[in-house]
């Protein structure tokens, strides 16, 4: 089963496929044991994750977090516009506009640095990522203990207990 089909099985489980694609996957499930196993494993994983979803807390309020992104986008747009018009600027105008941009950017950087330092001296910092190279796994980093957890959600291949432990 190729990667696209695996994704479709997952999307089928989430109920997000179109009726035509949904029928295709239903037909596939009727004849392919691997697809059935994958569907079962995905369902088990989803059930296992219910109630144990990892809460990644932002060190600031949601509004402030998104406002930073908005400010950053506006800053990028302004900078692009200025870089196009820079030839028309006099040297004085350039330094003036640079100061206007630099001061809030420096303040934002200082805030970000302070937040990072506070977090790094804190007791529990973690990060969740999905491995791009391995779509069947997700990774959780706990920086406070130097622990990395990699969880593999490949379909179980046998029925007589785990293929790994025991």
């Amino acid at each position: 089963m190729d990667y696209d089909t695996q994704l479709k099985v997952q999307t089928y489980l989430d109920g997000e496929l179109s009726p035509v694609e949904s029928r295709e996957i239903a037909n596939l499930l009727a004849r392919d044991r691997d697809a059935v196993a994958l569907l079962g494993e995905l369902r088990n994983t989803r059930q296992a994750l219910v109630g144990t979803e990892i809460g990644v807390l932002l060190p600031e309020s949601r509004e402030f977090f998104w406002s930073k992104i908005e400010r950053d986008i506006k800053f990028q747009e302004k900078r692009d516009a200025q870089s196009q018009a820079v030839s028309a600027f006099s040297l004085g105008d350039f330094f003036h506009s640079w100061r206007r941009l630099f001061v809030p950017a420096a303040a934002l950087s200082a805030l970000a640095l302070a937040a990072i330092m506070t977090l790094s001296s804190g007791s529990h910092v973690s990060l969740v990522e999905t491995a791009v190279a391995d779509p069947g796994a997700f990774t959780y980093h706990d920086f406070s203990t130097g622990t990395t957890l990699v969880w593999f959600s490949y379909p179980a291949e046998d029925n007589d207990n785990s293929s790994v432990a025991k």
Partner: protein
Amino acid sequence: MKRTTLVLCGVVFLLIQTLSAVSVHAADMQLEAVLVWGTNEQKSPDPKHKPVGADVKTQLQQLPLKWTNYFEVNRVKFTVPPSGANKVPLSEKCQLDVKTHGEDKIEVVVFGKGKQVATRNQELPKHGTLILGGDSPGTNCWLAIIKRVE
């Protein structure tokens, strides 16, 4: 003159051998692997399994895992030379193939019943821990905890 040259060459040869042996040994990565069975049951189905130590249990409880009890299946200490490899059998069914790339990079391949189950490449600094895991049939899980001792 000829004898002196021979002795000198011998001494230099021995010195080089000793230095290279010392440097290789010093750079060996010392690791410990623990195979753990996670379950919500109070007892492991295998009476030989013993509950994990308090330190391991605390470490696992800080991770986003849903299981309440963890049992140690086996524990193995081993070393891997720089840019070398080592095969570490953890149980009848489970084996780890551990390779090192440079001083801190590690590649772990988990084999279950001879089949490749999982692969992971990452930095593993001193005293760092890499935990590979997955669901087992039923509501259980397996965990391979690899700690870098030195």
